[in-house]
């Protein structure tokens, strides 16, 4: 990827492998990944792809079998305490004490983080403001709405003023308004503080909305990773759909298949996979004209991250 250790790369993962006992297939299979400093990094993959295993290893909850992980150039294992001090974690579960109030939860966690007593009120106030929970400060956590609970979960993750924040599906099960609020908050955090955010989600539109880097993981392997826009652009160059003004006959369909590897979807709509879109666009209209057919429209490229994701993960549901 062209990065040198410690230069603009906050997390550097190289040939990481993790095998669980009595499992034939490794949970992570020789993966390499670079998470740039200050990025909002989306980690995508179906259930069982290895996302949680990867996050667990990155926060030091699990040990790897092989490979190397460096945080700011330093090996993770030897610097786990230091790394944990600069990282925050917002788990998918609502990891707080429902019987305690918002204030009691925040006061407990800020103390548990080891923040000096004098700094605690400011940290709590900052986290409350970031999650816009000031009005709910005295409420019991269990009495909050689903969206507010998610915001409390997020606020707790911010209490140690992290430089890297792991967010594991932080918008699961909440209404669109609350989801947008959380996404806006995440974007603001990244924009205002330069915090690196590592975000897992099943909601592709969310990832497309807030992430600037992504990796798609499946079967313990990184299928694709890089800047989101570059990946989308790359995808656009590889797939084209065209629609004819009228139905093509069998002979024309066969010719399109033979000449352009165009697959007929309904006799009018065709799909082509190509690495040279320019060449295709030069030749295809002429060919169709020669056959007495007109083009009704052309669409090329992936319209969304979801299409990219589904293509790479083979669309099939996972165990």
């Amino acid at each position, binding site marked *: 990827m062209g990065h040198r250790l410690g230069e603009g790369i906050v997390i550097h993962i190289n040939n990481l492998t993790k095998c669980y006992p009595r499992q034939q297939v490794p949970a992570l299979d020789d993966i390499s990944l670079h998470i740039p400093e200050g990025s909002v990094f989306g980690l995508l993959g179906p259930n069982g792809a290895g996302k949680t295993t990867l996050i667990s290893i990155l*926060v*030091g*909850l699990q040990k790897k079998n092989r490979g190397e992980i460096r945080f700011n150039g330093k090996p993770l294992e030897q610097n786990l*305490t230091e790394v*944990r*001090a600069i*990282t925050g*974690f917002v*788990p*998918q*579960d*609502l*990891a*707080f*004490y*429902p019987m305690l109030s918002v204030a009691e939860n925040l006061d407990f*966690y800020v103390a*548990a*983080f*080891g923040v000096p007593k004098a700094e605690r009120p400011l940290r709590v106030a900052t986290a409350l403001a970031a999650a816009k929970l000031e009005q709910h400060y005295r409420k019991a956590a269990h009495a909050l709405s689903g969206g507010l609970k998610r915001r409390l979960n997020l606020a*707790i993750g911010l209490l*140690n003023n992290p430089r890297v924040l792991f967010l594991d599906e932080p918008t699961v099960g909440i209404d669109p308004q609350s989801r947008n609020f959380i996404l806006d908050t995440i974007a603001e955090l990244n924009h205002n503080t330069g915090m690196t955010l590592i975000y897992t989600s099943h909601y592709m539109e969310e990832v497309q909305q807030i992430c600037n880097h992504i990796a798609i993981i499946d079967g313990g392997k990184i299928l694709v990773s890089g800047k989101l826009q570059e990946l989308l652009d790359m995808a656009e160059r590889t797939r084209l759909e065209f629609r004819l003004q009228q139905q093509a006959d069998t002979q024309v369909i066969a010719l399109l298949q033979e000449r352009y590897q165009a697959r007929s979807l309904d006799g009018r709509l065709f799909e082509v996979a190509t690495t040279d879109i320019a060449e295709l666009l030069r030749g295809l209209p002429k060919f169709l004209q020669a056959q007495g057919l007109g083009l009704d429209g052309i669409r090329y490229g992936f319209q969304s991250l979801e299409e990219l994701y589904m293509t790479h993960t083979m669309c099939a549901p996972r165990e």
Partner: protein
Amino acid sequence: MRLYALIWKELLVLRKDLHGLLVLFIMPALFILIMSLAMRDSFSERQQVEVEYLLLDADRSEASAELLEKLSGIAGFVYRPSEPEQDIASLESQVAADRYKFALVIPPGFADQLEALGQDADEVSPPMLELMVAPTVTPQLQMLFRLALEDLIKGMRVALLSQGMSQPGEGQASMPSLATLMAGVHLESRYVYQGKTPEKAPTSVQQSVPAWLVFAMFFVVIPLSTAFIIERQQGSLLRLRIMNISSFSLVLGKILPYYAINQVQMVLMVLVGIYLVPKFGGDSLQLGDSLGGLFIISSACSLAAISFALLITTFANTHTQATTMGGVSNIIFGALGGVMVPKFVMPPFMREMADISPMSWGLEGFLDIFLRNAAWHEVLPEAGALLIFAVFCLALATVSFSRHY
């Protein structure tokens, strides 16, 4: 068909709920087994409860030999003749240590007193029999034994009177009244203690406070496991682990508050015994002479209870499982350990089984303080056993915890 589906689903769910099945089938089976065995002799017509006591015959007369023979006929009480060289102090120490529930001394002059049928027995005259009683003996048991002894003496008196009446010309002048014959036998009984003798004799409150205190202490398993498993399920525990909080701190963060709760429990129970029970006509609890000993045994009991609770918590997947497993284990520990059924009414092999229950060790430690007036160092064996149990549970819990999380 819908009902059938619902019923079938419920059975399938139940079949996969191993802990639920354990509670439904194994728990009552175990409880029935333990309680039936423990109480077997109490309800048996054969009265096989055997309370062992020491016997010292200092009179060594024909009358005392006859008494010994008759003593062996008292159902449920079995004497062990003491060695001739044993003195009173040696008997006292064995009874005070609860190795025997009683020691009966037939003092010199027993035969003479028995034959002095015309004289009224009074408190000034030397006692006919001396009975040393362990502080853990209930008033009912002591009363039962005393009545049996008095009946024997009265029987021997009547037999002597019959002999006198059968010899014409003798005994007419000294014929005692029926009232004298049936008057209470001067039998001196006293509790003996390991430490100094307290001002008041032991009462039921001295026995019940330790038993239910130990039982209550072990019930920390319910709140502890509930809180811990909720933390685990909701991810708070995970979050704490990522926050550079060591496992040692996490465990200590559990032990210390529950230790404090156990100590508050102890103080409250003691206050109930001292102040509340007398308000309802009961006796007041006496603390004994060793507050240090009370602190030691209470601390050891608390650590054992908390460690056991942590062990249960790490093995259970849900808080329902934990509370069920913890509750059932506690009831079984209590039944085995003499909390629900006094150990002396258990058959011998059940008494030996009682020694495997940590509640038994805690109970004995508290009884040392409240009843036997023991010094602090005398509770060290029980406290040590409880601490070893605590370390064992904690080690297992740590292994289980690090494997699963």
